């Protein structure tokens, strides 16, 4: 298009487009992770195949560790509280929730990487230990190329950089302070996950199907998100959450354009609804949950664990920021709707899980139910609620990762034995593993003295304080239903007789063992002595605007 148009569009003051100013230090967590990801790619390009595995693990752990260190430092400098502020021309926020969730995501990612790197579970292929990822992602399942790759003992070490990219996106997602950044972050975290889902070594058809479904629906959802962004931009003339809030509450300086657009609430409300669709899809809330069970089942289990934990955390982070920063003024419009969604999610998640026969699908539905519980905390729209949700996400992430890590250990000739029937009598053959899994299940069920209970108590308490008592009641009732299927698994493991040719429990390397161990520790720790982390969460529970 021609310059004149340009000038017209720019309102004739194109000269005064300010040069962006970036606070690299405070963005360091994301930058470090992205850097590590790029390094990973380069590794794929230049490091010999044999060495890649080690190098990638090194890079990933260093990157994530460094990022976590950065987060800690930033928090120590008070960026979580007093020094909280906006970065990069207000498109990224650094504040309590952001740093807290970034910390959680990074820790989760570290554990996930550990489970990724596990190489003792799969039978060794002519001398090469292999992990649970496809020998060669592109190769046709069962095709010559794959056989070739498998024999050569190839492994897809690309999963590490992919994961790092996803982590980067996840770090950005809850910190994004304008809709555009949020959208970009959304895509950055999603695209690598789409790929990761398709890279399972066993059951590749399921894996690819999972990838396809996740991708198509994900893209569909983000299209809604984008259109919502467009409408909100249309309404408020800006995509910065703060500005939107000002416009909504009518404190923003009135421009002639605004006088026109703000008359049209439809823009605002429809935009809000469509944004929520994009986010509700990510957190897996009913009726946008349909992808969850299929994807969780098909994806490689370490990836499932990572997704279930980290994606939910990041998505809820963004969700909170959107509703707490941009739309506090719209409480009375979105809260009733979210009530409905929360109730629907809790009930449907719990009820649907009752009849599941596959462990991974079961956990998928349970994660849906938990999304519902977390939503009750979100709806509280008070500081307690925010703190409670942060804590819940912390607790939930580790339980989930631990649970899926356990799933990777129960195997038979065809790989992981995820059908419940094959878990019968597990508690008799390997009591320890069964006990650990039982602990995670009890935490999911919210039995006291586990992290699950503390989290549930926190969110329900906040919800009740926020006047959402009915939600709490629905919550406890669906918890009862949920308890039913968690217990069903425990019964299966401990009280029913083992199948003759049941699965065996693989002895993991220190990697997975560490992941599970940490999971157990956190689960018990947050159950027995949660005070420190509750403080942390409540200290962090203030958004910057």
């Amino acid at each position, binding site marked *: 298009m021609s310059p004149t148009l340009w000038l017209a*569009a*720019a*309102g004739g003051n194109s000269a005064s*487009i300010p040069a962006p100013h970036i606070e690299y230090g405070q963005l360091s967590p994301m930058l470090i992770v992205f850097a590590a990801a790029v390094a990973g790619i380069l590794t794929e390009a230049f490091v010999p195949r044999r060495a890649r595995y080690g190098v990638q693990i090194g890079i990933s752990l260093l990157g994530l560790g460094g990022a976590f260190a950065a987060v800690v430092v930033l928090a120590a400098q008070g960026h979580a509280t007093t020094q909280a502020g906006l970065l990069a021309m207000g498109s990224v926020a650094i504040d309590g929730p952001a740093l807290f969730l970034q910390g959680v995501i990074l820790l989760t990612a570290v554990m996930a990487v550990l489970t990724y790197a596990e190489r003792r579970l799969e039978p060794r292929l002519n001398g090469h230990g292999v992990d649970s990822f496809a020998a060669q*992602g*592109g190769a*046709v*399942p069962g095709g010559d190329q794959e056989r070739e790759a498998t024999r050569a003992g190839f492994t897809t070490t690309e999963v590490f950089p992919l994961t790092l990219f996803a982590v980067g996106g996840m770090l950005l997602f809850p910190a994004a302070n304008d809709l*555009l950044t949020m*959208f*970009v972050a959304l*895509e950055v975290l999603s*695209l690598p996950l*789409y*790929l990761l889902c*398709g890279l399972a070594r066993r059951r*590749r*058809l*399921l894996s*690819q*199907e*999972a*990838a*396809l*479904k996740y*991708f*198509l629906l994900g*893209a*569909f959802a983000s*299209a*809604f998100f*984008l*259109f919502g*962004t*467009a*409408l909100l*931009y*249309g309404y408020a*003339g*800006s*995509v910065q959450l703060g500005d939107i809030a000002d416009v909504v509450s009518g404190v923003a300086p009135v*421009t002639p*354009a*605004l006088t*026109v*657009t703000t008359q049209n609430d439809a823009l605002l409300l429809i935009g809000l609804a469509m944004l929520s669709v994009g986010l509700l899809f990510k957190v897996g809330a009913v009726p946008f949950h349909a992808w969850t*069970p*299929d994807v969780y*089942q*098909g994806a490689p289990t370490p990836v499932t664990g990572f997704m279930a934990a980290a994606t939910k955390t990041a998505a809820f982070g963004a969700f909170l920021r959107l509703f707490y920063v941009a739309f506090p003024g719209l409480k009375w419009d979105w809260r009733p709707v979210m009530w409905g969604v929360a109730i629907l999610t809790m009930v449907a998640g719990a009820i649907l899980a009752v009849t599941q026969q596959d462990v991974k699908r079961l956990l998928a539905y349970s994660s849906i139910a938990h999304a519902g519980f977390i939503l009750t905390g979100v709806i509280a729209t008070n500081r307690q609620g925010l703190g409670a949700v942060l804590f819940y996400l912390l607790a939930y992430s580790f339980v989930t990762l631990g649970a899926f890590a356990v799933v990777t250990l129960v195997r038979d000739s065809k790989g992981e034995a995820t059908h419940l029937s094959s878990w019968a009598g597990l508690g008799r053959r390997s009591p320890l593993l069964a006990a650990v899994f039982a602990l995670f299940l009890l935490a999911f069920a919210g039995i006291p003295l586990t992290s699950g209970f503390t989290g549930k108590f926190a969110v329900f308490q906040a919800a009740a304080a926020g006047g959402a008592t009915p939600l709490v009641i629905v919550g406890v009732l669906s918890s009862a239903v949920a308890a039913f299927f968690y217990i069903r698994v425990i019964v299966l493991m401990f009280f029913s007789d083992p199948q003759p040719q049941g699965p065996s429990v693989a002895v993991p390397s220190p990697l997975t063992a560490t992941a599970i161990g940490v999971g157990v520790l956190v689960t018990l720790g947050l159950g027995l002595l949660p005070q420190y982390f509750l403080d942390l969460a409540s200290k962090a529970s203030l958004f910057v605007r």
Partner: protein
Amino acid sequence: MNPVNYLYLSALLFTIGASGVLIRRNAIVLFMCVELMLNASNLALVTFSRMHGNLDGQIIAFFTMVVAAAEVVVGLAIIVSIFRTRHTASVDDSNLMKL
């Protein structure tokens, strides 16, 4: 010409894209419909950008194109690999996981 008409157009496109996703069977076409939805959004953005007289909308549109491109890369990779496996691009054929 009243910019609002562009909004109507974009809404129309968005709806067409969405219904396309629901109706069509071929993964590629499905995907194209999603792209259509994204472009509908772009149109809206640009229009609003015009109405508000600031550049944000147009910048977002550029970003969107980039993102869409990335999506295409990933998406096609997945679709193609599935096609090579199953020799079909119909999304209805891949429903091993259900219930």
